[in-house]
């Protein structure tokens, strides 16, 4: 299947390894990847910050860059939610085929399991809240659970947000820190080897907090684990 890879601006700017893993995962699932090099950002950062003029302009460019029929796959529920839900609030027509990576693998490719194996370890899955907006339920967990060597454990209150919230983490730093530390303490108490996140926004915030507080917690993106299971 032909797919177009939307990298997300965060993976473009900082987390290139997540993009690499996403590409490897998609190729292993028999997808032919096209990467539109003119892509930048979906527009969510200014959208959430209230600058809808900037957001609309960026969103319109995304629509141009991703004009076409084949599915668009992005390793972030947040970007997928922006395209599918946020664009409409901006008065733009959203392309229907924009999927979060695991949602695409399970719902579109029809894979119920991922398989393969990794070095044995216990991991916690961090659910990104924007999955709510695209109806992302258990797809990430479902794929992870099928990987040999991986024990996926439930940690604390999984339905609760990590406190990132994009520009919120800057404008309401103290509240954001408090929410994040609660999450980190739950993770620490669970004694897992890794935290697997479906979105690098949450991971960047939590990782940055953990580092500041000298907590030894490792974060990876779900795509990185799926890619590791291929080796």
């Amino acid at each position, binding site marked *: 299947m032909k797919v177009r890879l939307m990298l997300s601006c965060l993976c473009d700017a900082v*987390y290139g390894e997540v993009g690499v893993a996403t590409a490897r995962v998609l190729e292993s699932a028999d997808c032919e990847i096209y990467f539109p090099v003119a892509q930048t950002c979906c527009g969510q950062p200014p959208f959430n910050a*209230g600058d809808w003029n900037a957001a609309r302009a960026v969103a319109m460019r995304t629509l141009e860059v991703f004009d076409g029929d084949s599915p668009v796959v992005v390793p972030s529920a947040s970007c997928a939610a922006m395209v599918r839900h946020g664009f409409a609030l901006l008065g733009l027509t959203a392309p229907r085929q924009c999927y979060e990576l695991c949602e695409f693998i399970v719902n579109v490719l029809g894979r119920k399991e991922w398989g393969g194996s990794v070095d044995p370890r216990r991991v916690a899955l961090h659910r990104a809240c*924007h999955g709510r907006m695209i109806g992302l339920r258990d797809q990430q967990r479902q794929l992870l659970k099928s990987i040999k060597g991986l024990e996926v454990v439930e940690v604390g209150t999984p339905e609760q947000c990590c406190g990132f919230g994009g520009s919120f983490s800057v404008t309401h730093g103290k509240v954001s820190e408090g929410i994040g530390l609660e999450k980190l303490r739950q993770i620490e108490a669970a004694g897992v080897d890794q935290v697997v996140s479906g979105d690098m926004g949450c991971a960047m915030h939590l990782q940055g907090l953990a580092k500041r507080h000298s907590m030894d917690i490792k974060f990876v993106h779900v795509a990185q684990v799926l890619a590791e299971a291929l080796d």
Partner: protein
Amino acid sequence: MKNRFDDYVRSLDEDVVRSVRASTERVFSARAKTLPEVFDDVDHARRQAADVKSYVLDNLKPLLLKLEANCAKNGVTVHWAKDAASANRIITGICDRVAPNGGTVVKAKSMATEEIHLNRHLTIAGHTPVETDLGEFVVQIDRDKPSHIVAPIIHKDRKSIARSFEREKLGPYTEEPEELTMQARAHLRSKFQEADVGVSGVNFAIAETGRIVLVENEGNNRLSTTVPRVHIALMGIEKVLPRESDLALFLRLLAGSATGQRLTVYTHFIGGPKKEEADGPEEVHLVLLDNGRSRVLKGPFRYALRCIRCGACLNGCPVYRRSTGHAYGHVYPGPIGAVLAPALDGVPKMGELAKASTLCGLCREVCPVDIPIPDMLLKLRSEDERNRTSEWTWFGLAARSNLLWKAGLKLLPMVEPPRGWKEFREFPRKRVDFRRWWRGRP
């Protein structure tokens, strides 16, 4: 960036945060347990309730006229108050007539009376308002403000309540909740007896019958609305429901969402003043409060008027749990407050509240009337930012040009992260460049 909300949270005692978190978690899990026991399909029930409330908002005027006509048949006097001042004038006017030299006014818990600051106006007019809901009573003796729309003293622990009761000489010092309750009960009993007027809110008012419906758990509503000679009920105009049969859905959704109860301990149906009965009020007044609601109804935030004040969005909200209701600086805190406050009081005054959210979407998921709170917070943010130069302007420009975008990516490691970021967190370093990897592939 200066931020009143965040500054308030910086000043908060960690004990307060802990007790708010524990209480909200408790009722929030009770909600999650009860609703699926009561409804086969909770989401369906929520959408059904949303539909009924949408119908109400679409037909508000005729429904209110029908309510007024049926109230009149029941002997209930209906008053229309276009704003807080007029509602205060109507209510103090009735109190002045009933008790010309001033007197005790017992009050059942009501957010609408908080909204119009009724206690202050009653006091200025020479009356003595007495809150009879246990939580509101503590708020009143402490000269505090409610921090939650259902649990007004969620920010207090029992030690501080014990100290307040001792200070007010309500009885010997005790930290036992039952004993504290008995002390308040003994104190309030005489207030009910001496009051000429009882003021309550309204949970639902039924257009087809003109009946006023109140829910509560303590019994103080029953006493406030039946013992004094006059009962005045204040309701936001959006609280009207078309039919009594709608209550089968709404009473259970409200109780389940608010406290995880299948039904509240008491449900009162008030059909007018006493007729042949020995007890009950001689007069019942219903004050319909607009106070900006008609204006909100015409704008993009009209869905917020579906709210039935259950507090579920507060209880689940990570920001509310961390910040407590007082951080919002408005009678309506939490996610719904962050919409209602700017919608009612104006974006210039309260618009910043819309930013006090991570947009995690839990509020919408648990709202019994399916209010799209995150969407409205986003819209409010855009209205709040409309006339400001945004720090995202450069981003908007860069994201539209390949050249600028690539230059920006190169420069990023040299740019200082914003203060609000680096005060609390480290910033990651880029290790892999995806574009380079992609270009270098065979």
